[in-house]
Each structure stands twice: as C-alpha cells, then as structure tokens.
C-alpha cells in the first residue's frame, strides 16, 4: 500500500504519558521514536512513593510498563535527546534530534555499578531531590531503562577510574553527540512538568530551613528506595518527626507569581502523604494539612479524604499561611503563622513542614513548543484546542499529560491514549508500514526426547565471579541429572556468548537451557530469543539469579554464596527438565467495534474508530443521539457545544462505516475479545471485536431545598436551559453539592463547581447589577478552571462557604424565596431573598450500568460507575480485555474530559483492532477437561473472566488469560495447570534443592 503519510510517530517526553502513548502506538501498528531528555525513561512517576487513591506502590505499577516500552521492537527509545527542529506538515514531519553522548555503551553496560564504586566524584542526586549523593557516573534509578549507567560530564573529573573499573569495556569518554533525523507522521508532546521551586516564596522558609521540604522531597523520604531507605526522618538531624504540617497551594492559585491556576493534584497527594507518613511512624504521627479548598474531585478521591480525616486522624485546617519560621525554643522546629477561616491569627509549631508544590511547564518544553510554533496559554501550558482533548494549533501535533495543564496520572494516561486515538485518524492509511516483526526459524519438536540440559553460568565480569566461585558451580552443574553441558561465561548476555550459546544448543542437541546470571526480569527475553534462533521453543528456558539475589547480597560470604549458587543452579536444572514448549494461541479479530451510548463520549469514540477504517455499531437506548449534553447552552469556557454536537451527530449519521441503532438496548452478549456477538433488544445480532461502554450519566433530581415546589427553584441544568427567559431576575443563589458528597452518594460530581461559577459569571456579565451568591463546601475549580473562580470573585460573585452540618435553609414565605446560610467569617446568619435558586445537582451513574455490568461481566464501583482495570494506569480499560469505558460511565467529568476519554477508549481499542489475530499472553492456564468437575471455582475466582463452563467442563480462553495461575492454585481436582509454572515444576525445584548430588 502506498501512502504519502509516514507510519511513525514521535513522542516527546518519556514520562508516563509518553510511555503509554508509545505502547499504544506501537501496539496499533505505528513505529515510535520516544524522545527523552534525561538518561532514562520514567519521568516523575518513579520518584513517587505511593499513588492515590489506592496507595499503590508507584514503581510496582510502572515498572512493567518501563520494561514493555524499553523492549518493544517498534519503539525506539532515544534518551539524552532534544528536539532541535521540526519541519514538514501533518502526515510527514522531518524532525532533527540532538543526542548527547552517554559515554557508556548501553549494549555493553551490565549495570553492575563497578564504575560508580570507583568514581571519586560525589554529586547531589537530583533523582532524590538532592537529599542524597550519587557519583558522576550514575544510573538514574535502579529500575531505569536503558538499564545502563551514564557519565555526567559536567561533574566528571575525567580521572579514568570508571574506565578501569568497567570489566565490560562499556565506558568511552571519547563518545560524541550525534544528530538524528527522523521522519514521522505525527508528534505527541508529552514533556511533563517541573515542580514549582518554592525558594521564590521566601515566607515559607524553603532553602533556609532544612526541615521545610517540598512534597516531591517528601515522596523520596517516604520511598523505600529513597535517601533514608523509607525511614521517616527530618533532614536537619535525622530524627523522626512527631508532628508534620502540609501547606497547600504553594506555587498554585497565586496570581502574584503568575500561577493563577490550580495544580489539581496537590490536595490528593498531600492527603496521601499524610496517611502514608502515619503508616511509617510507630509513635503515632500528628499530621495537619493547611488548605484553602480541599479539591478531592476525582474518582474515589472524596472517600479517600473522608477516610483520612475520620479514620486516619489527619487534621485539616482551612487557613491562609503567612509565614514559616524557626521554632520559638527549638530552632530545628518550625513555627507556622496563619490566619484561620475567621481571620484570627494563630501560631503552631511542627517538626517538619511539607510544601505542596504545584506544577509548572518545564522550561525546555516551553522553548520547544515556541520553536514549533505552538501557542501556549498565559502560564505556558500547551492547552488543547477547545473540545478536542488533545489537539494543538498545528495539525498532526498533539499534547498529552501535565504540559497540557496540571493533571493527575490517570488523566495523563487517558490523554496519552487519546492522542494515540487522534493520531490514528491522521495516519490510519500508513498503519503497519514502518513496523516490523522478528522472524524466527521453525521450532524443533522435542516431544518424547530425554531432557538434554545446557547450563551457562555467568561471571558478570567480576560481579558474580568475585564472590561466587563460578568454576566450582560449573563443575557442580556438570554432575547434575540431565545436564550434558555446563560452561562459564564472562558475560552470558554479551553478543559472542549468545552466539556461542546458539552453537552449543545445536552441537549438543540441547533441548533445555539454564542460565545462572542476573534477573530474569531484565534478561529472560534476551536468552529466550537465542533459544528461538536455535530452533527451540522459548519456554524450554530456565533462569536463576545468582547476581542480584546472591553475589551482590552476600559479598563477604563467598563460601556460603557459592553454596547458594550451587543450590540455585540445582533447583533450576531440576525445574528445567520439566519445561515443556508453550505455543501461543491466537484468534482472529473481528475488526468492528460496538459503542454503547450515543452521547458525547459514544459519538466521539465512534468517530475516532470509524475514522481509522473500522466498522462501528453505535447503540443508543433513546430515540435520538446526543445525550445529556444536548441540554447544555455552552461549555465551561464558553465553547459552542451545540454546533460541536450537531457536527458530531451529523458526522456519525453520515459515516459509511457507522451503523446507528437508536431506541434499542443490549439484550445479550456472547464471546470474548476479538470475537463478540451482541444481541440487541430487537433481536439483531452484531459481531464485533471490541466494546466501548459510554453510557453517560443521569441528572440527580433533588429531594432537598424545596426542589419541585416552586418554579424558581431549578437545577443548574434547568437554569442553563432557561437562562434567556430570566433577564429580569436580579438575585441568584447557587447551592453546591446537592446530592453529592453525602452519605448516600459520597463522591464529588466534579463539574458542578465550575459549572455554577461559569453560569454566575455569565449572569454578572449580562447584568453587573445582579447579585449572585454561590453557597459552597469547597470550590473545586481545578486546573486552569481556577481562572473562572478568580474572575467570578473579581466580578463580584459572592462565595459563602457552608458546613455540611449546617446546610443552607430554603423557605417560601408569602411568595418570597428565602435562602438562609451561616456566613463562616462573621458567624452570622445571612438571609438572601432570591429570585432564582439553582441547585448544583449531582451526576448519577446511568441506570443501565447495572445490567450492562452483568451482560459484559465487568464490575461497577460502589457508586454505580464502571470500575476500570487500574485506577491509575488503566483508566479506560476493564480487567477483561477488549472492553473499554468512556465518559461519565467511568465517573463524572466535564465535556472536554469526556471527549479526551472517548478518544482514549478508541485509541486503546485500536491496539486490538489493528491486529489481524490476537495472541495469548505467553504462559496461560489450561484445563484438563477429563479432570474438571465443573465446580466453578475458576469461573468465580478469575478477575479477567477467562474461564467459563462449556460442555460440562471449564475452558479457559487463552487470549483472555493473563497467566497469574490463581485458578490453578485453587482448582480442587488439579484439572488446571499454569504452563511453565505448574506445581510439578515448583515441587521439582524444591526437590532439587534438597537432593544432594555427590
């Protein structure tokens, strides 16, 4: 197929946005250049200790993605690189990259760290926020990819000690930088953010007072791999703090320093840090968060906040901070001078103060954007074009992540997938033109052969060899059962060793291979490739770790380390003998999508998928398309939503690949990813490979505040519709959180604050003489929307905070509509004679969700919204492959966010639709139907819906199985085994350990 477009994409920035975008692109058939300015991919996320709201370990959830992106055949990671020039246009850009020399050959580097041990030069470790030191030759962090060291030339003494120390000859101080030119069809800008430097705000004492730290520093302090190994200590004297304060909005919501936006993430991370810090402290840590508005607006956030306050005992103080200064008696302590909500001046001492610093665009990203001619907003964020989610002013260039405006990880990941969805619209015709797949020779059938095992023991330079007596281990391995060959290697992973290994396999007719070296996490795929090249199935391989888990951790106990290495090899050999070939199962993919829901999210997903050439079936239960957004007069920032929607509907209705089924619902679902047959209520059957659930939400009909009793009491949605008729009304009152953040509906509906503020502003603009009151609990105008709040206050909208225990009272007296509220600053009752009362009513999940969750076997959360596979890193996926969610079906969100998520769902769906066949994930669980009692244990246990009962026995869909083996562990008749990891192999391994060989 010829195309004028280039089937490659450049992703600028390798944080979580860049990594997610790259993986989605590569899986959708595009070649990716992932360009990163530092020496490793990962961005900010590896620095974080835990992530909210699940308290997941950040590194745990990220590292599999690091490995996937790092190893992906169709992702070229270019580190230490900057974009110098971009020429051309959408579909065909030429990009010039300047690449700094690493001075270490990443192919040769074994990441052993001998160079750093030899290096005499200490440098503050920026990864640990300067709280510890590293050497001038360093690796950014332990799990970094590329898994190689880098010379920091700026701090290098050029003494040559590292060169002498390196056994692998990987270091070359003569390396020179290079210029790369690449052709790409589109560009995704994901350069991330930098944390605000609070030195500029002197009154916080940062930089002067050592126990005032930033939140990012605090993340490193909490991290087990951080400067204090996870022990809670304060920097000045290493003592464990008893009392810590967090100060919110440092560098955010501050117009004086031109940071008039909310950084969106700080409330949640501060709550999380307080909760986690308490877990780290044996003595019962005292934690206080000083804040203006608690902005816990995301999915699951409000509950997290409530739990922190009510169960974990985190104290929240609504306040203004004036100053942090040394304690009155103990100068190591810190005195905070602040004004409380009533304006009363207060003082309180703490052992440590954490500044919740905001996000700002990175300087080099700003420079690059300017160079590329991309207009930035007043804070230098590259805000997406209105109602596009990801588009910039230039076609073919998209934005994702915090550079688009402050946002948390799930929104960043969502936007990354959305950029991929959008990019696909441009490049669909060039899909698959630049990617390649590696071809391997046919596999030799080893069935029925006696095991012939080859054992390769690595010295890893001196990393293993200087502790473990490798020759002794090799000699020992030769005596083990089934071993026909055992050899030592200087580096088993070096190119010559791999070639020799391949030759040895052929020459000795080896049918199993054991490598004793470093971690299978990093090196197993490499050795497995060698097996495949030597005509062996990759699962005939067994690896044992005698470096990271032996020589490195028993450096002073050489004899015992050698004994342990012998044991490990013996275990591996015993297990290897039982290894069997595993053939991946594949199924064909029906290249069509089912989209459930014809609102903004469903329409957007449908258009994004159809625009890439896939058949789309759009099902809407109402008789017309458009959903709830049809009732909006405009977007939060004045966007013309009406014409946008009309355009979308027209686009969907006229698209040759989209079939619309209105007035119908889903009646039945059969099949699984790649091949689903869905039946509609009219009996029609639809065949599709993927499903997007975009069921939207419903407006809550208030039971409070006399709603329904008087025509002047409206919901925000009704007010928006009636606005034109209300020209004469003078006094407007908005009440926030109606039906949200309540015991029965404990979540925040997210959009109501911005929505009320927007309408209030509009009312004021129409007639400045109007009185507009907003009665709120916390104003949650996050991100750039903070500007609306700022503007509303300036234009005279009156904000009155009310307490959840002292809600406003609405009464009708003699035809007058009265709203009474306690004004917290004065403590007085404020009585407002309102012409119009508008209730910011909650957004409810669609009633249809419950039934759909049963039909598609996907979970709902406690609130009735769909529950994603992972709150942080898989925000649009379900745990069961091939089903995605978009829009309010996932959680309340505004139109812009709906659109982004809908494009993301389409982007993710394309990773399946782009493939002709779907392959199983390597090792999977298999059922012996003869032994199966159809007891349902596996069916009930599996989170991925892989097992089902068919013909009176369980069967596991290989393409759905993720290979965890939980079913195998539980199966009461041992009818299920996990390939490569079954009980027999575990028992063999343990038996091997306790069977001495003389």
């Amino acid at each position, binding site marked *: 197929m010829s195309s004028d477009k280039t089937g490659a994409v450049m992703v600028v920035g390798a944080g979580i946005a860049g990594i997610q975008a790259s993986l989605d692109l590569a899986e959708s058939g595009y070649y990716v250049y992932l360009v990163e300015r530092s020496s490793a991919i990962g961005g900010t996320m590896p620095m974080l200790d835990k992530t909210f709201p699940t308290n997941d370990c950040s590194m745990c959830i990220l590292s599999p993605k690091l490995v996937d992106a790092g190893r992906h055949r169709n992702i070229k990671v270019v580190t230490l690189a900057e974009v110098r020039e971009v020429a051309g246009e959408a579909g065909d850009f030429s990009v010039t990259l300047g690449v700094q020399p690493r001075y270490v050959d990443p192919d040769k580097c074994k990441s052993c760290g001998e160079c750093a041990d030899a290096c005499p030069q200490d440098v503050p470790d920026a990864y640990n926020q300067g709280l510890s030191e590293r050497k001038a030759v360093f690796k950014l962090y332990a799990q970094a990819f590329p898994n190689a060291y880098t010379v920091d030339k700026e701090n290098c003494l050029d003494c040559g000690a590292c060169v002498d120390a390196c056994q692998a000859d990987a270091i070359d101080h003569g390396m020179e930088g290079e210029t790369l030119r690449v052709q790409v069809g589109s560009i995704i800008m994901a350069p991330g953010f930098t944390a605000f430097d609070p030195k500029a705000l002197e009154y916080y004492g940062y930089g002067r007072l050592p126990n005032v730290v930033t939140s990012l520093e605090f993340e490193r302090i909490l991290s087990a791999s951080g400067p204090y190994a996870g022990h809670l200590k304060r920097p000045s004297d290493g003592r464990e703090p008893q009392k810590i304060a967090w100060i919110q909005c440092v560098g955010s919501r501050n117009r004086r320093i031109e940071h008039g936006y909310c950084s969106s993430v700080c409330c949640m991370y501060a709550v999380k840090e307080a909760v986690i810090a308490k877990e780290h402290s044996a003595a019962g840590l005292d934690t206080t968060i000083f804040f203006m508005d608690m902005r816990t607006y995301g999915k699951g956030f409000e509950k997290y906040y409530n739990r922190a306050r009510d169960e974990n005992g985190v104290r929240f103080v609504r306040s203004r901070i004036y100053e942090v200064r040394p304690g009155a008696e103990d100068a190591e302590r810190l005195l905070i001078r602040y004004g409380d909500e009533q304006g009363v001046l207060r003082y309180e001492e703490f052992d440590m103060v954490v500044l919740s610093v905001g996000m700002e665009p990175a300087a080099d990203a700003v420079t690059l954007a300017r160079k590329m001619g991309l207009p930035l907003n007043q804070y230098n964020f590259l805000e997406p074009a209105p109602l596009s989610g990801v588009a910039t002013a230039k076609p073919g260039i998209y934005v994702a992540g915090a550079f688009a405006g402050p946002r948390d990880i799930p929104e960043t990941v969502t936007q990354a997938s959305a950029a991929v969805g959008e990019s696909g619209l441009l490049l669909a015709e060039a899909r698959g033109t630049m990617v390649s797949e590696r071809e391997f020779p046919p596999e030799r059938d080893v069935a029925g052969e006696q095991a012939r095992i080859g054992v390769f023991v690595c010295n890893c330079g001196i990393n293993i060899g200087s502790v473990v007596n490798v020759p002794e281990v090799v000699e020992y391995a030769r005596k083990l059962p089934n071993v026909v060959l055992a050899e030592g290697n200087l580096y088993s992973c070096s190119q010559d060793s791999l070639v020799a290994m391949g030759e040895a396999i052929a020459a000795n007719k080896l049918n199993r291979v054991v490598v004793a070296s470093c971690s299978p996490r990093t090196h197993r795929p490499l050795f497995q490739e060698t097996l495949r090249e030597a005509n062996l199935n990759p699962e005939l391989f067994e690896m044992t770790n005698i470096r990271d888990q032996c020589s490195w951790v028993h450096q002073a106990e050489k004899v015992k380390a050698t004994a342990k290495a012998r044991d490990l090899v013996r275990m591996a050999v015993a297990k290897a003998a039982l290894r069997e070939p595993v053939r991946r199962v594949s199924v064909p993919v029906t290249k069509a999508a089912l989209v459930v829901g014809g609102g903004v999210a469903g329409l957007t997903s449908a258009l994004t998928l159809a625009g890439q050439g896939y058949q789309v079936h759009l099902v809407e239960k109402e008789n017309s398309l458009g959903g709830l957004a049809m009732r909006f007069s405009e977007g939060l920032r004045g966007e013309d939503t009406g014409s946008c929607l009309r355009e979308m509907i027209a686009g969907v209705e006229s698209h040759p690949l989209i079939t619309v089924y209105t007035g119908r619902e889903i009646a039945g679902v059969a099949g699984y990813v790649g091949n689903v047959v869905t039946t509609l209520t009219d009996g029609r059957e639809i065949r599709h490979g993927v499903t997007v659930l975009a069921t939207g939400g419903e407006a809550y009909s208030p039971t409070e505040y006399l709603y329904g009793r008087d025509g002047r009491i409206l919901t925000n949605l009704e007010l928006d519709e009636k606005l034109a008729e209300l020209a004469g009304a003078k006094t407007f009152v908005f009440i926030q959180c109606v039906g949200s953040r309540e015991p029965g509906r404990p979540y925040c509906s997210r959009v109501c604050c911005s929505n009320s503020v927007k309408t209030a502003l509009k009312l004021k603009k129409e007639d400045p003489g109007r009185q507009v009151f907003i009665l709120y609990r916390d104003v949650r105008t996050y991100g750039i929307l903070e500007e609306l709040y700022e503007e509303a206050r300036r234009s005279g909208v009156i904000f009155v905070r009310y307490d959840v225990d002292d809600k406003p009272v609405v009464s009708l007296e003699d035809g007058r509509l009265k709203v009474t509220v306690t004004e917290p600053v004065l403590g007085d009752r404020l009585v407002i004679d309102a012409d119009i009362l508008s209730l910011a009513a909650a957004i409810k999940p669609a009633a249809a969700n419950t039934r759909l969750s049963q039909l598609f076997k996907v979970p709902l959360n406690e609130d009735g919204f769909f529950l994603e596979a992972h709150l942080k890193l898989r925000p649009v996926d379900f745990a069961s492959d091939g089903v995605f969610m978009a829009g309010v079906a996932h959680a309340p969100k505004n139109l812009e966010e709906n659109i982004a998520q809908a494009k993301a769902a389409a982007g993710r769906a394309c990773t399946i639709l782009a493939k002709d066949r779907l392959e199983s994930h390597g090792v999977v669980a298999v059922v012996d139907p003869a*032994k199966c*009692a159809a*007891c*349902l244990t596996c069916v*009930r*246990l599996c989170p991925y819906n892989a097992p089902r009962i068919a013909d009176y026995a369980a069967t596991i869909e290989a393409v759905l199985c993720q290979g965890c083996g939980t079913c195998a562990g539980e*199966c*009461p*008749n*041992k009818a299920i085994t996990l390939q490569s990891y079954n009980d027999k192999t575990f028992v063999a391994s343990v038996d091997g350990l306790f069977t001495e060989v003389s």
Partner: protein
Amino acid sequence: MIVAEQKPLAEIAGMIGDCRKVLFAGCAGCVTVCLSGGEKETEVMATALRMKRQLEGNPLETVTYTATRQCDPEYVDAMADVVKGVDAVVSLACGVGPQYLAARYPDLWVIPAQNTTFAGGSKEHGVWEEFCGLCGQCVLHLTGGICPVIRCSKSILNGPCGGSQYGKCEIGKDVECAWHLIYERLKRLDRLDLMRQYREPKDWSKARDGGPRKVTREDVMIG
C-alpha cells in the same frame, strides 16, 4: 450435590495409627465440587498425615488416587491396583464411597475422611446450604419450590408453627421460616389457594423410615 466436611486431621490420624501404608482415595464427584475431597484435598491430606507420622517417628507410606466417582462399581473396580499392599484406604468421598470400597474389597480396612452432611448447593464460593431432605416424595410443586421437609426446622408440611416471627424461625434469628417463604412465594405467584388445599398424609415409608431404599429403572437396565 452431596456436601461433606473433612473430619479433623487428628481424628483421621487416630484411625490409621497402626497402618504403615495407606491409600488416600479422592472422588472427582460431589466432594470435588464442595472442595473437600478432590485430588487437591486428597494430596494435601496425604502429605499432612505423612508429615505427622514422620514427626512422630512412625513413618507412613501414602498412595493417592482420585476416582472419577466412588459410587459406581466400575470406578471402584479400577482401583484394584492401587489398593494392593495398603493396610487401609482413607476415602475422601461422601459416605457412599467407603461402603463401595468395603463391598468391592472385602479384606480392605476402609476409613471415612469425611462427615457427609447434606444434599444442598452453594450459596457463595465456600458456603453451602442444605436444600433437600431426600424424603422420597417431593412436594415442591405444592410449596412454591421451597422444601418444608428440610427448610422448616420441624419439617411441618401444612403451614407455619407458632414460632414463626417476622419471617424468622424460633430456633435462631438467622434461620428463615420456610413457611413464611412459601407463603410469600405463593402470594407472588398468585397461588395462595395451594395453602388452603387439604393434603393427603405424606407417605413417610418412601423416606428413610421405610428402611434402606432402592431405585430401579427397568427401561435403562442392561441385559
């Protein structure tokens, strides 16, 4: 399914105290489904008891085998080889299994590993409830699909007793009153007339009261 519960390990150990070699026989039928006597449980029990005996200085040799079912002669016949040379067989089947083994292998010492509890089904994974009283004369069509014989604590056949309160049985507040359930269901089905019908006395001779029972089906018998 038949639901059975394993006897405590110590009790089983006591029953095989003087044996040197024991066969542990699982059953891939009901007891596998109620997670008490499939291959997994059989091997776990054999290993645990073997370890116990090792610790006591009185080693035990174990053999494990899981029959497709222990309630059909052919499957029990197939165990002829594995029972050879064992001093006893511990059957993890329901109460039927040990008896089939005993009948087929007259010289074999047979030990039950289970307390066979009831005929029932699973409520959720890991929880089973009793549903059928095996009375031999089913009345479910008259009682809205709810068995009074087994689900009423007193097996009353014609309406609730005075101990029914707020839908619960007097024996415990977690026990539903079967007759309350029957009433609600018949009401829902608009068949409360069934409650008013006079019933013939139940023929309890068809239940256990008539001695051991036997079911014969001429039409499927072979030869």
